[in-house]
């Protein structure tokens, strides 16, 4: 039935006089040059909704732009909707964590489906997210929301009681993270009641989870009308520092189980269109533990790695999949087979091991390695190293590409310890 509607829409569009293939605008929620470029390359007219600071730049380069403060909770979403509607926008694509509920709100208005907004909120509250997953029978760790330090103390104790720790044993850590921040922003592991005192009022409410062992990986799933169009698996070598695409053969072998888990997740979260970026842990026995899921562009340059390995633009894929009107045919033409990677693409995010940078030190062996693609590091003019927030502000990235996942892993492990900055 949905397909019928689609075709109806198609004919409707074709009968419109403008003569454009797709006469409506795609609203990119968040300022991202690669996403803008992708939209441009797809020949889709678009409008960017981004922080007002980018207005000048957008005007300079003739980019249709609506300035918006995503951080400020306000009642103005109706105003934003009307503004975008007047411009002719019908699809909103979220690019950053803070943009997800805004895109949800807009899409629910565009399509007159109020629940779309609620679904997007599910992705923005890690407590709600975990509970939903648990209710759907997805395997998650033990978790709770905390409102104050007492809650954290209690949780740490209970988890370790359950692990049968006695006085004097070293505690297993629990993980605390803000309910609504991207990836590892604000994340901290606590294995000592004394660490709890370091939390401040602004850290609450937060989500606490038991520690999960096992190999961590993420998926970038391009979903259209509830169906997986392309499943990318990214192997994490060290969380926040290094990863590569596609995964090594041992993880690749689990693709069928992983696909099943994703299907379960899509159903539970009623995800229809766009990209999702869930993280899992594989236990030694092969079972999967669900970590969390986001509906935005993933960090760690994963989209770049997908493009390098498979040859398609993940940004374009996201935009295509976010639009319910994209046809099956278009999508089939767009995506390669999941087994058609041309090689392994990996990257290492470099963070200085020193507090003050004197100079940059790139070893000859690295530059001369067959797998070395490029890096983007320069000696920073100002030497003081900024404090790290989440895994966001790395100083540079080194890209590798080659046909041997073991060698890629070795490079990523070895150079993670290397002092690029002295």
């Amino acid at each position, binding site marked *: 039935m949905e397909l019928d509607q689609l075709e109806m829409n198609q004919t409707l569009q074709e009968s419109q006089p403008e003569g454009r293939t797709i006469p409506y605008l795609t609203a990119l929620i968040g300022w991202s040059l*690669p996403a803008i*470029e992708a939209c441009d390359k797809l020949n889709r007219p678009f409008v960017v909704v981004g922080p007002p600071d980018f207005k000048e730049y957008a005007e300079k*380069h003739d980019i249709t732009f609506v300035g918006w403060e995503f951080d400020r909770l306000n009642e103005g979403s109706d105003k934003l909707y009307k503004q975008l509607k007047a411009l002719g926008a019908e699809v909103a694509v979220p690019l950053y964590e803070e943009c997800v509920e805004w895109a949800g709100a807009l899409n629910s208005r565009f399509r007159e489906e109020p629940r779309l907004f609620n679904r997007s909120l599910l992705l923005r509250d890690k407590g709600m997210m975990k509970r939903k997953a648990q209710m759907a029978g997805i395997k998650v760790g033990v978790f709770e929301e905390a409102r104050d330090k007492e809650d954290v103390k209690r949780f740490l104790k209970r988890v370790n009681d359950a692990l049968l720790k006695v006085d004097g044993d070293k505690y297993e850590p629990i993980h605390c993270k803000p309910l609504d921040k991207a990836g590892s922003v604000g994340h901290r592991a606590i294995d000592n009641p004394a660490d709890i005192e370091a939390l401040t009022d602004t850290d609450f409410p937060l989500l606490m989870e038991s520690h999960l062992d096992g190999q961590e990986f993420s998926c970038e799933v391009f979903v259209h009308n509830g169906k997986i169009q392309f499943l990318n698996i990214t192997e994490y070598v060290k969380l926040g520092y290094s990863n590569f695409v596609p995964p090594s053969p041992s993880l690749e072998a689990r693709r069928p189980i992983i696909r099943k888990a994703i299907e379960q997740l899509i159903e539970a979260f009623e995800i229809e269109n766009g990209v999702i970026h869930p993280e899992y842990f594989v236990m030694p026995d092969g079972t999967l533990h669900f970590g969390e899921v986001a509906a935005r562009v993933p960090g760690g340059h994963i989209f770049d790695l997908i493009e390098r390995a498979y040859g398609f633009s993940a940004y374009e894929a996201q935009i295509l999949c976010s639009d319910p009107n994209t046809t099956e045919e278009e999508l089939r033409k767009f995506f390669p087979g999941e087994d058609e990677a041309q090689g392994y693409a990996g990257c290492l995010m470099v963070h200085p091991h020193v507090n003050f940078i004197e*100079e940059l030190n790139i070893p000859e062996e690295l530059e001369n390695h067959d797998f070395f693609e*490029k890096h*983007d590091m*320069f*000696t920073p*003019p100002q030497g003081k190293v900024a404090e790290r927030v989440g895994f966001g502000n790395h100083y540079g990235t080194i890209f590798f590409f080659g046909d041997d996942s073991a060698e890629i892993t070795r490079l990523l492990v070895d150079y993670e310890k290397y002092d690029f900055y002295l």
Partner: protein
Amino acid sequence: MPSEVTEGKIARFSRSLTRLEEAASYAKSRYQTDVYQEANRLLETEEGLEVLYQYAHRLDDAGVFQDGPWEDASKLQAPLVAGSLQAKGLPYVIEMLSDLRMLAIAEGKMNHPKVSQEMAMDFLNEVMALNLDLLFPDASEASRIEKKENTVEAQRLFRFISQYLSSSALSETLIYEIERLTAQRPITVKRTVSMIRMAKEMLKTETSGTQAEVLEQYIASIEGPSQLSSDHSLPNDYRKQLMALSTEELRKESEALGISMRKTGLCSPQHSVLARFLSRKSPHLLPVLLQLTSKGKANLEEHAELVHQLIKVALFPSTCQSVYGLALLLERGVLSASPVMPGLRRLIELDIRPEVRSALFKTVGEGEGLTANSILLAGVISVLGQPLGVGQGLNPTCQAARGISLWAQHAPGYLLEIIPRAARDGDIDMVFEGVQIHSKDLHGGLAPDLHPELDPVSLVLVPHLDRIYSEMMSRVALRGEDGHRWVNPAFYGDWVQKGFSTVIEPITGSVTDYPGFVRLFYATHHPEYNDDYELIYPNPVGIFITNVHGKMLGFHAVSIQRIAKSPDGEYRVYFYNPNNDGSQNWGQGIESTVMDHGELPGESSLPFDEFTSRLYAFHYNPYEQGDAYAVEAENVSNVKSMALDSWGQEYTWISK
């Protein structure tokens, strides 16, 4: 360490540039990094510049410079090139590429909408003239000692560019730079001397007629302007030669040295040797060496004994510049002011504090056998002879420099009072609104770590003056009015007028009644509106400093020396700028000049309206106001629009 150009590196650069070229204008920043990286790999090699230059005509259109400080080639400034090249990382790479772009324009390999071939060539010539130490390495001691970033690569760049430049254009620029510097007759001549040394290096490789002649004259002025002094550059050697001269020969020698000194304001060590020799053996030839006018001669005759004493104590090869200072001091007749003679004599035997002594010793080379008193006295001679030659060096201490200059002009006795206070007692005190302020009790100031490249008097005084000025300003900080109103008269002395007007309303930080401010300045200073009251003492005023794009950089203190018609009949403000180089570009076509517009040595000047547009505060005599209403509305609005479009961007304007 130097790697080699490989086909692979060239191909990678070429690919990255093509990708950038193909990118949409908004997405350039995504592809620029790769270009910079690949360019950097090439720059590390010997032939990399040659390779990159093959691409130089494509860089601008490809978007290599887009959305960054190097975007608009017509706004680039030659004096900033060296700094960028010595910066770490990215600025260095982009600067290199930008200079290659400029070369491509100059060579006609590409057209630029705003930069003509000639403009590009001029730019490169200026860059080269300013960076001769990199083109001719090892020429300066400083470049040897202070090892800088990217020196090898920068030298490679300059050598590369110099292949394309005509040597005559380069020496022409160099001559102009030296002329401009010497026209200002600064007390510290380190920069001038180092440029002349560069010129000498250049002459070793190429010579071209008249320019070579001019440059040789400059070289001679610091190395020995006469045959004898040039053949015998060692002071001891030269001294022996002098003894063998007949009176007539000695007169000729004195004349040669004297004329050269008066022409350039520069002295060679031989000047001091000759001055000492004459002072002892043939005092009647001193006026020839100093090239004194009748006024100077009269002064010398009147104070002959003291002058001989000064020469004996203060003029040595390493303080030779003070020979010129002495000549001007005599011309100015400073010695006739009654406190000056005892003031100078006191310095000869002054008990100088150890820390001051060591600061003074650092201004001359080791092993010269000078006393700190000699160095200080030489400095005082220079300051009294060249009051407008005082500079603030690399310190943010414009107020202190302005004070020293002002006292040297109008209150030499006072200056000679505070120098011993600072040098002997480590303290200067001033009374501010009935309260005694002692510098020794104060900390901080604007320049707690004084940069030592200063004349001896500034070295001694600035730390104290700086702290006192800061203290006075903080005492009035909360009065809701610009503190300079009270601080300037108290600090500089009673010749600062009590009337005071400022552009900025201190409480709100906004601009109120700008037209009124402009009219008042015209009515109190412009000869056509102020009832012909002449400016008697320098007027310490505050100006907004703006960069070449007219963007405000901060505040600066200068003194208006006089307002007069220039040789071509326009009214100009002649002012003292404590910056060591007074010719500056403040944007909107406002360029203060130091010569060719009727400036006295050390003065900067601007047309009256242009100067007014940068003014933010001035003093005036409330009893000497002319007709503010008579100022043409057109003048006012012209000044206002220059103000609005430059520093005015940083303020809220409440005035109409």
